[in-house]
C-alpha cells in the first residue's frame, strides 16, 4: 500500500525529530538553568522571545527563516561559505528550523523543573565537595528526570507534527526534506486518499502512543509535567 517514498518520509521524519530533540536537550539545558537562576527586569522580554514560536503561525516563522537562509543574507551566506551548499531546502536547514520551532517545548518543562528544584540540594552537594559537573549529573539530572523526559518527548512529538515551517524552508524534496506531513499533503493534492489515510492514521496513532507514555510516566513519577510542583 505504501511505496518506498513513504518509508523514506517516515525515516526522514524520525531522523529529524531525533536529531532536533537531542540538540535541544543539549543546548537548552544550560539555557534553562541560567534562566531559572536569573533575576533581571529584562527577563520577561527574554522569556517571551523564547516563547514566540508557541504562538506565531508557523508560516511566519518559516518566512523569516527563509529570508535568513537565503544566500543574500549573512546567515545563509555564512553557511554557504562554510559548507558549500545553501541552507534553505536542505536537511540541515530543516534541523535549524525545527530547533527554533520546538525550542519552547524543551525549554518550558526544563525551566519549570529547575525553578521548582530546591536550590538547597545544590548547596548541600557543593558543601559535600561536589564539583558543578558532578552536581549536575549526580543530583540535578536524577532529581529532574521527569522534566528531562517530558522535554525530550514533547520536542520529539512536536517536531514530527511540524508542517508550516517545513513547507516554507524545506520544500518537498523526497529523501532530503520531504517529511511525513508534507508527503501527506502531497497525497491529498494528488487525490491519493488511500495513502493519505494510511499516513494520517499512522501519525495519529504514533502521537497518541507517545503522549500516553509521557502521561503515564508522569503519573508514576509523581511529577505532573503541567504542574511539576508536588
Amino acid at each position: 500500500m505504501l511505496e518506498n517514498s513513504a518509508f523514506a518520509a517516515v525515516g526522514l521524519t524520525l531522523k529529524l525529530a531525533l536529531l532536533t530533540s537531542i540538540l535541544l536537550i543539549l543546548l537548552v539545558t544550560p539555557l534553562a538553568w541560567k534562566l531559572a537562576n536569573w533575576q533581571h527586569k529584562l527577563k520577561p522580554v527574554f522569556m517571551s522571545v523564547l516563547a514566540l514560536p508557541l504562538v506565531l503561525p508557523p508560516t511566519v516563522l518559516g518566512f523569516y527563516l527563509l529570508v535568513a537562509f537565503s544566500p543574500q543574507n549573512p546567515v545563509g551566506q555564512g553557511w554557504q561559505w562554510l559548507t558549500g551548499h545553501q541552507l534553505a531546502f536542505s536537511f540541515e536547514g530543516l534541523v535549524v528550523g525545527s530547533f527554533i520551532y520546538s525550542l519552547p517545548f524543551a525549554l518550558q518543562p526544563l525551566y519549570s523543573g529547575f525553578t521548582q528544584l530546591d536550590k538547597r540540594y545544590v548547596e548541600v552537594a557543593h558543601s559535600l565537595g561536589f564539583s558543578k559537573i558532578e552536581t549536575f549529573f549526580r543530583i540535578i539530572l536524577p532529581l529532574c528526570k521527569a522534566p528531562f523526559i517530558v522535554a525530550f518527548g514533547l520536542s520529539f512529538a512536536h517536531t514530527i507534527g511540524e508542517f508550516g515551517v517545513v513547507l516554507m524552508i524545506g520544500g518537498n524534496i523526497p529523501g532530503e526534506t520531504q517529511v511525513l506531513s508534507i508527503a501527506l499533503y502531497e497525497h491529498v493534492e494528488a487525490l491519493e486518499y488511500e495513502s493519505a489515510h494510511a499516513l494520517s492514521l499512522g501519525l495519529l496513532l504514533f502521537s497518541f502512543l507517545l503522549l500516553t507514555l509521557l502521561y503515564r510516566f508522569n503519573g508514576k513519577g509523581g511529577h505532573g509535567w503541567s504542574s511539576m510542583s508536588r
Partner: protein
Amino acid sequence: MEFNVALTNRINAKAVLPESMQVIGITGPSGAGKSSLLRSLAGFEPQAKVSVDWVGDNQANPNSRSKAKSKPVRVGLVFQQPMLFPHVDVKGNLALAQRHAGEKALSIDHALAGCECEHLLHKPIDSLSGGEAQRAALARALVNGPDVLMLDESLSALDAALRSKILRFLVETCKRLNIKLIMVSHDVQDLALFCDGLVAIVDGVITAAGEVAYVMAQIASQGTLENPCAILEGKVMPSTDDFPHPFTRLDFSGNILYAKSIYANSMHVKPKQAKSIESTVACSTVSSAESFTVSSTVNKSDTQNAELGKIAVFASEVSIDTNTQINTPSSSILNALPCEIMEIYQPDGLQGSTLSHLGQPLPPTQLQTAIVVLSHDSQTLYARVSTLSIERLELKPGLNVVARFKLQ
C-alpha cells in the same frame, strides 16, 4: 575564630572568638539573621561580603595568612529541612557524601551508630519521619567529614532526650577530630550545655560574643531573651549505697544538687594541662557604633580527679525563698542553693521605658516579671519572678536568699 559578615539590609556581624572554643552556639530571636549568618559563612550567599578566619591565628602572624591557607577549609551545613537526596535511599545519600570524604570523615557505621539511625540505612527518603531524616542528614555530614560543621536547627524535630544523646556524641566527635562545630538552636539549654562559646545576634548585629556565662548574662540584661538559662558546674558525686535514688548528685561547693541527667564534661579537663586559659572577647555593636572588649580568665584546676558535671537551669524554673534555713527540708522542690542577689532587671527599670532596646513594645509577660540575677560562689543563676513578688519580699541587690528549682 574570627568573622566579619555583611549582607545588605540584613546582617552586619563581626565577632572574634578564642581558638580554644571548639563548639560555638548562635542564639537570637527569630528573624535575627541566624540562618543568613550561617549561610553567609558557608559561602551560600553570593551577595554577602564575608571574611572569616576559622582558626583565628592570623593575628599572631598576619603575614602567613595567605601562605598557610593553601588547603581550603571544608564547610558542611546541615539545614533544618534535612535535604536528603530523594532519588537514592539513606545508604545512597551516605555513599554520595563519602565520594569526597575528608580526613575528618567518620565511617558510615560509626556515623549511623552515633546518630541513632542504623535501622534507617535501606529506607527510602520519603518514608522517613522528620526526626529520622534530620538524624540521617547529620550522619551524611559526618561521613563527609568537613573541617567546620554548621547546624541550622538541624535536630529540632527530635525529642529532648534523643537530641541530647546525639549532641553528646556530636560534640565528643567534633572535639576528638578537631571539627569546628557551629550550631544555631532555639533551645538555649542545649546551647548552654554543649557549647564552649556563644554568639548572640539581634537584628543582624552581634550583641554579645564569648563564653557561655558571659553571653548569657549579656542577653539577660538586654532583655532580648525572655528566659535566660544558667549553667551550674559541680563535681559529680559517685553513687553510693546510702543513696538508692536514681538521681545524679552534684557537689556544688558543699551544697548537693540533684539531677536526672547531667552533661559530664570530664574530657574538657585535661589533667596535666593545668593552666589558666585567657580569652579575649571582642564584640561590637553597630547600632551604637562602639566596640568594647571584655577579658575573662578561667582557671581549671586539676587537683581533684573528680568528674565535672553541668546542668542548665532556666530562669523560669527558679523560685526565690527568703527563708535561708535549707537544712530542714520544707519544700518538695529538691534543689536549694543559698545565693546573693546581684542585680534585678526590672522590665522598665533598666530600659527606662516599656520599650525594649529595639524600640518595640515589650510583650506583656515581660512587663509582669523581672529577671533576678543570683550569685553563688561566682556562679550565676537567673530567676524569673513576678514584679509582685519582688515588691512583697522586698528583694534587692545584696540580699541573701535561697534559690529553689526542681531537679533537672
